[in-house]
């Protein structure tokens, strides 16, 4: 959650940290032009950070090595040249077609909603969930798996939460998606829509203690008060003010800039741009979840 830089420190703090890192050479005050240029560059980095979160390496300092990260990035870009791995978020509906070693010659297609997205680099994975014949099914896929033939985004949208694992305890209608659903195309340049649906959960027992997770996309849990009291006891509301913790869990902005500028040059070279399919006008979907 914090790894993708969702809660970045503000610009003043970034400058403070930058100063800390370069104690010997004091940088002069940036002029208005350079500041505007920096702002523009920073905005593009912010966009790419949301679209390609797996390009950011593991922020743990013990595991970091610039050469390995460079090699990993070049491999990821080489794979992306063969298959279009689109922009998607938790809550989007995807269709994955892969070549099955157990049924040679045939392709397996699975449609589902993305409930979780984890991992960095070549290890990045996502979980798709769907309900088929009244049976809830979840499949974990690796983004850079070479047996995957294609990944299509049928509906691009975001939800109010970063992970939708609570759909396992929700009523099955919230996880049912038509396997023959058609691609819903958004107008070009439009921001990613946020679906603020409030899901109704089944009665307890649940897979996890959802009252402790601060979920926004769930209806009122209707639990006895003692659950909420215990959740308050266990809660750590001070964590969001812990700047050092945040700093250790994020990649510094200069390095992010380097990573994404490298990515941008490669994308321009290969001719792959981010929003390719959104050229036609908006078509109202016939079947809803």
């Amino acid at each position: 959650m914090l790894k993708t830089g969702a809660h970045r420190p503000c610009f003043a703090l970034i400058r403070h940290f930058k100063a800390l890192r370069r104690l010997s050479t004091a940088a002069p005050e940036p002029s208005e032009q350079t500041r505007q240029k920096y702002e523009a560059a920073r905005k593009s980095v912010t966009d790419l950070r949301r679209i390609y979160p797996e390009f950011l390496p593991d922020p743990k300092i013990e595991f970091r090595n610039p050469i390995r990260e460079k090699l990993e990035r070049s491999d990821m870009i080489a794979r992306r040249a063969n298959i279009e791995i689109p922009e998607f978020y938790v809550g989007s509906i995807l269709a994955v077609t892969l070549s099955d070693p157990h049924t040679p010659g045939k392709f397996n297609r699975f449609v589902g909603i993305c409930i979780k997205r984890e991992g960095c680099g070549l290890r990045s994975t996502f979980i798709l969930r769907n309900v088929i014949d009244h049976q809830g099914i979840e499949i974990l896929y690796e983004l850079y798996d070479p047996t995957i033939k294609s990944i299509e985004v049928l509906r691009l949208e975001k939800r109010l939460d970063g992970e939708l694992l609570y759909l396992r305890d929700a009523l099955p209608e919230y996880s049912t998606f038509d396997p023959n659903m058609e691609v819903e195309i958004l107008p070009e340049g439009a921001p990613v829509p946020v679906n603020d649906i409030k899901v109704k959960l089944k009665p307890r027992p649940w897979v996890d203690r959802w009252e402790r997770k601060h979920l926004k996309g769930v209806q009122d849990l209707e639990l006895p008060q003692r659950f909420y009291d215990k959740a308050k006891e266990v809660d750590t509301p001070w964590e969001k003010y812990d700047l050092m913790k945040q700093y250790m869990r994020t990649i510094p902005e200069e390095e992010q800039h380097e990573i994404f500028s490298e990515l941008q040059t490669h994308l321009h070279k290969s001719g792959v741009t981010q929003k390719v399919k959104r050229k036609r006008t908006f078509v109202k979907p016939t079947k809803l979840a």
Partner: protein
Amino acid sequence: MALALSTTVKLLEDKLLSLTISCMSVRERHKLNPPPKLRNPTWFTQKNRVSFTDPLTTENQEFLKEVVQDQCNNISSEKPKDLDVVWRPGLQRTGVIARKIGIYPMWLKNGKKISTTLLQVLDNQVIKYYTPESYNPPRPRAGRVSNRKGCLLLGAEQGDPSEFTREYCGIFKDSGVIPKKTLARFFVSPDAALPPGTSISALHFCVGNYVDVRGLTIDRGFQGVMKRHGFKGMPASHGVTKTHRRGGNIGGGGEKGRVWPGTKMPGHMGNRYRILRALKIWRINTKYNVLYVSGQNIPGATNSIVYIYDTKVVTKRHTEPVPFPTYWGGEEVPENIYDKELHEFGEPSIVFKEQ
């Protein structure tokens, strides 16, 4: 009777010898006359110098750096003209000093996923060669057959000579190499001897070869018996009193009613050299000199030094010629060399076809 001093000494010597010979068949003989335990090996030299911040200007500092560079010879990666050795099975060539830079998944052409560790071969240069006769190991083992292998001293990671002591820099004097931070010995057949100053790169190895990797394991400190030896411990509840992670019984009774030496107990874990055998090289990146080796359990933390050499496992030794004594360069090599079974990321997706 007054005996001469020399005869007394000789008598004493004979007596001592008879004592030692009669003690040959005693249990725990190594404890009777233990060899002296040296604090440092005979070849040990102090490495780092106490550094002073010299009050020099930046220009003077740069000038000093240039002087150091001029004094040392250039890196020679060309084959010396009189070196004409052909590989044959049974010869041992040098190893290489590398750094473990990370772990990466890769996929094979049959769809299987493997974990590979990236080992970056640092700027290795040969510093000295000891012939089998002249090589003097720090702990000579009595009764051993004379050493048939020579010893090559390799250095890696260029360092600043002003940080090292004069003794340490003296090791590099003959070869003309700028003092290196890491040194390592590799045993080689006399045919595989290399002249000092020769540089060794990742192409010393071939894709598909098997290697042994020696590294210093992560220091885990004082660890209990469950982590250190894999004991199962005891239940967390059901009346168990104050014994959840302990070792339990440490011995039996009877005639041998004592704790045997070697009984597994808590203690210091890690920070030891361990060798992982017969790891396959799947890919070589020639731009950054990186070997992609199978396995994710190479001893050592990320960014630590490891030592790589051809495997000693009999079934996995190479049967085809390899760059011997080392790779001299001169050919055009692609940036990445892959194994036949490995799926390259630039290739199209894997499709399983009907047989």
